């Protein structure tokens, strides 16, 4: 049986609730879950001040309500599942290493920072810096999958080292900036300056995109890995078309200012 948490009081200032994660609630009865600590702005509060719990602490957690001011849900999550039946605040899935977080609504900025494994699925849009490094850090996510069915904003996958980020809609500027490795697939449009400072890795888009002058055209071909990747995404519910799976892709290499071992693959209509 899953633990069900329902927001009964909307926080006035951000609520930081990293306790909402399977390993923290494991084995707790509902009243015990409500006694877990959270931070409401600068005040220490009980989870129960904002959420009512039903069921008991289990591997699966279901959250109801508009959680757009609730941060850090699923922090350090290692297994199990969290389903958020609405919008969610910043840093969802911070430091996640396993399990799955599903967000039925929109997610705020910093989805899955410092993630190393597991999967985050956002059915709505996500904000800036999805899977990106925090400021000053050398690398972003180093594993796992972040699947956003809607659109994302700037700096998606910044400095990511490993993992897969897929976007059903459009991406903002600087997608895959300073990327170290990994894969970003954008079904919609890329913004400007994708792959700036990229060392290795792949940025894929189904549409034409403006490229930096430090990217060099390579060829038009059918990279087999991409076929696998797109089949995988189709299996996960992304609207990947047959013509994409079997299509030809124009490959651009860059960023020549860095290792020059990255690629941007643009679908050839």
């Amino acid at each position, binding site marked *: 049986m899953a633990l069900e948490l329902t927001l009964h009081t909307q926080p006035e200032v951000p609520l930081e609730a990293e306790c909402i994660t399977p390993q923290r609630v494991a084995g707790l009865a509902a009243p015990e879950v409500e006694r877990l600590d959270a931070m409401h702005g600068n005040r220490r509060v009980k989870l129960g001040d904002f959420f009512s719990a039903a069921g008991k602490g289990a591997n699966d957690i279901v959250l109801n309500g508009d959680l757009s001011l609730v941060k850090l849900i699923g922090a350090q999550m290692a297994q199990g599942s969290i389903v958020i039946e609405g919008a969610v605040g910043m840093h969802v899935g911070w430091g996640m290493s396993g399990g799955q977080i599903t967000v039925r609504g929109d997610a705020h900025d910093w989805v899955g920072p410092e993630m190393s494994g597991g999967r985050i699925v956002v059915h709505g849009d996500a904000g800036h810096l999805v899977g990106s490094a925090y400021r000053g850090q050398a690398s972003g996510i180093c594993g796992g999958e972040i699947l956003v069915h809607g659109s994302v904003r700037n700096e998606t996958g910044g400095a990511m080292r490993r993992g*897969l980020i897929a976007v059903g809609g459009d991406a903002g500027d600087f997608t895959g900036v300073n990327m170290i490795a990994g894969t970003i697939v954008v079904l919609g449009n890329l913004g400007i300056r994708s792959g700036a400072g990229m060392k290795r890795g*792949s940025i894929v888009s189904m549409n034409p995109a403006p490229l930096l002058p430090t990217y060099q055209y390579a060829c038009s071909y059918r990279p*087999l890995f991409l076929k696998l990747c797109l089949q995988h995404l189709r299996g996960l519910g992304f609207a990947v078309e047959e013509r994409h799976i079997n299509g030809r892709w124009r490959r651009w290499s860059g960023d020549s200012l860095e290792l020059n071992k990255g690629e941007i693959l643009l679908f050839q209509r």
Partner: protein
Amino acid sequence: MKIKKTEIVPTYAEAFAMWGARAIVTADSGRWALTAARSMTGFATSVIGCPCEAAIEREVPAAQTPDGRPGVSVLLFTVREKDIKKRLMERIGQCVMTCPTTACFNGLESEHSVSVGGALRYFGDGHQSSKVLNGRRLWRIPVLDGEFLVDDLFGIRESVGGGNLFIMGASASATLRAAVAACDAMAAVGDVFLPFPGGTRSGSKVGSKYKGLVASTNDAYCPSLRGAGVETQLPDTINAVYEIVINGLTEAAVREAMRAGMTAAAEKGALIISAGNYGGSLGRYKLDLEDILGGAGQHGA
């Protein structure tokens, strides 16, 4: 016991532990996949004289391959665990990567694995890249017609090598018909392969009168030597023997293959079916023919 008119000798096949791996070779067309797979399984009949034993397990329809292209499943066995990575590297590197449009995937889930793509990647000369998809790392090695995609890790498991049957008959042609029927039946069983060309002939014993030779003709089952002073195992009615060697990922698969093979050979009129062993002193597995046919489980071991 007998199946129809075929006599089943109350003996057992003595089989050995080997290490096995399965590679799925795919290509743009079945033709190229098969070409690569054949090349990959060439000169891999017996560890007596080859570095490994390998053969095509089956063709895999596009819908069932990792990349949705036509594929061929190849099984490859070695005696020692430490050799299998090297053999896979050589054969995938030299026979698959060199063949147009191909890719090569791991076909065996196992707790043990060896890094093959991780070793082959250096062919990319620094331009290779790896991708992790669903927890599985693939290496992309640039080649002149695109990229060669190969799994980093190939599962390996302890397997069974040297399961065998002797199909005996009155003439070579009749016996071969029975043997081929057996081979065909066995090929339909998953997780096994028959390392010898076409599945049969083989026929060697351990050792030789010549120093340094590890195997020689199995004189005890050689009809033409019946009068040459060897201790023959053949009744006078037998003028030809076909040995079928069966390697399998599991003992159960080997047993099932042997069962299917014996049944098919009997259908085609084999006179006697027997198996080879060394008195049970060498191999780990004793595959009792009657027991296999009785389907009562193994009690020979």
